[in-house]
């Protein structure tokens, strides 16, 4: 305990005063943000994957439940996995009674995360606007609106005129278009923030509470003891033993759990994203066009961050497919013709695993001591609540009420949580 307190006092508190103090010394004396301790051979909990969910789980294990003998093992580098490959959209416009309270909680936690972690998340609560172009989509979103009303999330319909006033760049989709714009739906709770800051902020705060983060440490297989329960993991740096192991490795979940003989109902898919050159402020909301199949927001740097539909078939490639890219651009230009002048700078894919009901899985598995958080399709928005609720499960052995529906048991009983709010998985 006294070690923990020591570390907390060592951690530099970021404030305007620390900025001034360090500016006076030429920014040469900033302390290291997190430690790089030697890898021990035994921990209370091993978290595989230093992405958003892994780091958040480790942080809340230490903060809420006092479990600090935790190692987070990361194959690559911190903030280099799918947390760097998403489009930073934070929203809670979901469909199911099970989902909405969970995402409402997560959005609220995100809004307080800068203070909680003493790290600037650059959170920008800027509203998401859905551009509706077909009547079935409007019916579905109106239904979502009614369910969301019950849980205190915001979703309101606006006219086409109001929609075009709020997004002046939306000049396509007129009455003669193949898919004319019918109306818009406004979700004022939505926002964006900075993905690096989420990874670094959670890493720094977890580290300050005694959690160890080990980069360049690839878990190759899970180890089971003679009684079948989890015993630890085999890594490229040797064996690490723990009674509790959390798998938070979006995309590669089944690859890893199969080493323990565990089959999970997940498929790995690739989602496309790309970024334009920076331009002056043009669009101040997140624009989602579910009927055309793309969504985008303008980053603080001025780049348009654009996402498209998933590739057909399973994929671990984390790359962009030319025809998915072309289809996304074509759809975007049909509504935003002026974007034709934009040059695109970067493109990438992110791989995620999805269960066929498009809801996440946060549960202990049939291997005692092995926990899994997976099936996240747009899991970025779920990082704070996902980490908190999974830490609750790991520490107490029973699910947090908010995560209770997202079990593996729902597959055993064929009692699915069919989620239509998982935008691009439609």
């Amino acid at each position, binding site marked *: 305990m006294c070690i923990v307190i020591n570390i907390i006092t060592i951690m530099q508190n970021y404030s305007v005063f620390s900025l001034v103090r360090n500016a006076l010394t030429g920014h040469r004396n900033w302390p290291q943000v997190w430690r790089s301790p030697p890898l021990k051979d035994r921990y209370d909990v091993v978290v595989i994957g230093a992405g958003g969910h892994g780091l958040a789980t480790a942080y809340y294990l230490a903060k809420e439940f006092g479990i600090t003998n935790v190692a987070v093992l990361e194959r690559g580098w911190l903030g280099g996995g799918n947390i760097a490959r998403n489009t930073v959209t934070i929203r809670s416009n979901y469909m199911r009674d099970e989902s909405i309270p969970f995402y409402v909680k997560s959005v609220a936690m995100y809004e307080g995360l800068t203070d909680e972690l003493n790290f600037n998340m650059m959170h920008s609560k800027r509203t998401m606007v859905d551009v509706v172009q077909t009547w079935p989509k409007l019916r579905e979103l109106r239904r979502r609106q009614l369910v969301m009303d019950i849980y205190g999330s915001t979703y309101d319909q606006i006219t086409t005129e109001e929609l075009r006033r709020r997004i002046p760049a939306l000049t396509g989709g007129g009455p003669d278009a193949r898919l004319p714009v019918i109306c818009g739906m406004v979700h004022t709770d939505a926002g964006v923030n900075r993905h690096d800051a989420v990874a670094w902020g959670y890493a720094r705060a977890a580290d300050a509470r005694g959690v160890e983060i080990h980069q360049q440490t690839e878990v190759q297989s899970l180890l089971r003891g003679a009684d079948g329960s989890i015993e630890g993991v085999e890594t490229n740096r040797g064996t690490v033993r723990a009674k509790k192991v959390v798998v938070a490795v979006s995309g590669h979940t089944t690859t890893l759990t199969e080493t323990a003989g565990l089959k999970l109902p*997940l498929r790995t898919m690739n989602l496309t994203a790309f970024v334009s050159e920076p331009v002056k402020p043009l669009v101040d909301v997140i624009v989602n066009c579910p009927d055309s199949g793309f969504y985008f927001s303008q980053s603080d740097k001025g780049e348009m961050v654009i996402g498209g539909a998933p590739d057909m078939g*399973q994929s671990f490639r984390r790359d962009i497919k030319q025809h998915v890219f072309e289809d996304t651009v074509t759809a975007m230009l049909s509504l935003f013709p002026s974007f034709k002048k934009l040059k695109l700078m970067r493109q990438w894919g992110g791989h995620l695993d999805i269960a066929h009901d498009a809801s996440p899985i946060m549960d202990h598995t049939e291997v005692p001591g092995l926990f899994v958080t997976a099936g996240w399709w747009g899991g970025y928005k779920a990082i704070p609540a996902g980490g908190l609720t999974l830490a609750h499960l790991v520490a107490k052995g029973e699910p947090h009420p908010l995560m209770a529906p997202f079990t593996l048991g729902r597959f055993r009983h064929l009692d699915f949580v069919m989620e239509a709010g998982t935008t691009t998985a439609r």
Partner: protein
Amino acid sequence: MMLITCPFCGKRNESEFIHGGPVGAVRPDPNAVSDEEWVEYLTVTPNPLGPVQEKWWHARGCGEWFTIWRDTRTHDIVEAPDGTK
């Protein structure tokens, strides 16, 4: 863009095809298996890091359904692991 070989039309652009999912287990007799085995048949699909056998439909072409082996790491269409078609 993948070039997929349709048994009738030869190599065609991927955009002419619709993906039909991975080839799963053969449907067991529901009365002959346990509940666990039946649920596993219904919910678990192969998700290999490497070659996967999958169904494709030449929907914007001749309409043929067929299977190919594709490497999920590279999108290369590969030989079946055991050499069979």
